[in-house]
């Protein structure tokens, strides 16, 4: 029920608290209309985002995942978004191995003042996911595969994949 059949797709956003979540707030305060598909999970920093969260979200049935953090050099935690960028870039390259269209995942940087930019990011990404349509459902994904990717990305495999 929560995703409106035929109208919405399941899009999950991971946003850092300081910049992008604030940017989404600014967009709201400015009443910048956006598509309704996106559900936002708030994290303190884009550096907190484990790439396997994203893989699991996509395998779990989401049609798209959007990550947004602070602009490079403008991170509230100094360098969290640099870690994020490296990890997410690697993840992007691994998605096809999982059988996931890399177009279903994107990451960007939006600051707390950029309400209009956030509106654009959400609109464009939502359109992009609608163009791809609903994601094919995974019956079961071998945990070994996730672990392997985790190993390649260089972290986290032993816990999140398990």
């Amino acid at each position, binding site marked *: 029920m*929560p995703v409106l059949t035929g109208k919405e797709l399941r899009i*999950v956003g991971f946003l850092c608290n300081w910049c992008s979540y604030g940017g989404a707030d600014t967009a*709201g305060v400015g009443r910048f209309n956006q598509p309704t598909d996106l559900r936002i999970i708030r994290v303190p920093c884009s550096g907190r985002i*484990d790439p396997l969260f994203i893989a699991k979200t996509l395998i779990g049935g989401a049609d798209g995942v959007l990550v947004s953090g602070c602009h490079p050099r403008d991170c*509230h*935690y*100094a*360098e969290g978004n640099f870690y994020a960028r490296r990890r997410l870039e690697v993840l992007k390259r691994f998605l096809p191995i999982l059988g996931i269209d890399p177009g279903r995942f994107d990451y960007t940087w939006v600051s707390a003042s950029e309400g209009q930019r956030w509106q654009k990011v959400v609109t464009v990404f939502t359109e992009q996911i609608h163009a791809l349509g609903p994601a094919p459902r995974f019956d079961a994904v071998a945990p070994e595969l996730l672990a392997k990717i985790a190993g390649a990305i260089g972290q986290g495999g032993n816990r*999140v994949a398990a």
Partner: protein
Amino acid sequence: MRIGVFVCHCGSNIEGTVDTGIVAKTALDFPEVVFATDTMYACSEPGQDGIIQAIKDKNLTGVVVASCTPRMHEPTFRRAVERAGLNRFMFEMANIREHVSWIGKDREANTNKSVDLVRIAVEKLRRDAPLIPSKFSVNKRVMIIGGGVAGIQAALDCADGGLEVVLVERDSSIGGKMAKLDKTFPTVDCSSCILGPKMVDVAQHPNITLHAYSEVDAISGYVGNFQVQVKKKATYVDWELCTGCGACMEKCPSKKNPDVFNEKIGPCTSINIPFPQAIPKKAYIDATTCRQFVKGKCGVCAKVCPTGAIRYDMTDEIVTEDVGAIVAATGYDLFDISKIAEYGGGRYPDVITGLQYERLLSASGPTGGHIKRPSDGKEPKNIVFIQCVGSRDKSLDRPYCSGFCCMYTAKQTILTKDHIPDSQSYVFYMDIRAPGKMYDEFTRRAMEEYGARYIRGRVAMVYPKGDKLMVRGADTLAGTQVEIEADLVVLAAGAEAAKGAPQLAEKLRISYDKYGFFMESHPKLKPVETNTAGVYLAGSCQGPKDIPQSVGQGSAAAAKVLALFSKDMLESDPQISRVDIKRCVGCGKCIMTCPFKAIKEVEFRGQKKAEVIETVCQGCGICTSTCPQGAIQLSHFTDNQILAEVNALCQS
């Protein structure tokens, strides 16, 4: 767990496009939710009382409020649940206003999405644990960065409040832009007469340490305990010995350098004290023009200095200052008028900025207070002022209003008439922005009493014709093109972020907008706070401001610092990382990635383990997503919690 869910109408802000009743009703189906209701204003006193009452009546052990952004009211509701006897971290928010009701009008979709957001808040809350903050001590020294009028005010108020103050100024003297002004609006009182005494107070205040000609190099630490590295740039003059007598300036053979204090419309010597009221009144050498440095020989100043203060071998020096709070008051810079080629700034000497005009008006300026145009030193009769040069201009990526130009231009027309009674001022403007006390009356006086001719319209181009400048503009009220043969053209150059502002913001770990102005914590309610605890803002570094506003903000920032320092101990945010010692294999990856050096290596029964230093950890969670074992977990943002949110969304 017994969870209560409160869905806020926020008047019609949420209820207008979200059926909060359905959201509450649906929430009752979620695991461990035992109570759910919609409420008119959750943050109001009755709203909070309702939450407290429900916690008591229903024996709730956790609360979800679905309302506005947690960046707004999370602290409010945490205090409310604490008043009801719960640990304040047994609380989660669902943002159904900024992220739902305000960004779309589809009531069905919005209601549906709100249900989802409540669902993930519930799933997260089910995995929350009570957290207890720890306490840490505060270093009650404050650093003010920037010695313009805002920084001076903040420094004096803090110092008068008994705090030790470190004031850092990039130039060789404090005073900022205000020190360059001749008079101030709307009173037309002398700028240096009202600023000068404050500058002297800074110099003489026992609680203030002034680092002039210095810049902030690096900042580490956190609220209550910052370590700031200040680079004291080489002045090549021992300021302990320099008496400010000025003998060196009289004898310096390199006399034709553009005088930065005079906005480059006059010359200055390579060894220089920028203006008579400078604080500190000390000389410094500009090594890029000094003959001793450029040609390797001169040494005149060293010979004439009566105290032997010249030190050609001086180098930059780094000093470390430990402070508990920082106020950024770094001001603004002017838009580069040469970017608008059609006005000829930078090409035609008699096209100048408003600040350059201030220097021509000022008795301590390059012309001794006589208005003489730069090209030939003649006294101008027809003076054209053009407003909004680099303001309200999307094509130049300067869409904002600089705020103070309308007023200083009105002042300049008045002063022009005082200086040259047979002169005529013309002002091209789009709108007159004069919302302060006695401001609008002031602009009217410029027109009614001083005869300034205001023309509503922009200027398309300025070009030389003989020894005049042809100004071609529009009078939109008359609906016509107009031309003026001007002797001098003064451009009201807009304000832009100070050079290096973004780099300083990055060092302070505060945000800045796309123009480089620093971001306040809340545009209305937290105008001088930032999102980094212990870092405050004052003056134009946050956006263009006039003198009264800057002074007000300087005092406001000082009040915030004094309030912060009124406690001996501060509570740390307990949403920090914690190590599960059983799972930790001592690989040290978390230690390497932590940006705050908040994790140290310890020995535990002969094995290496990681340990989080509670008060240093800032709660970013980079370590958590780095740890291969899942041994270090950020409280309230654990892997389990985030994955529970993911599952809730994917499987709903």
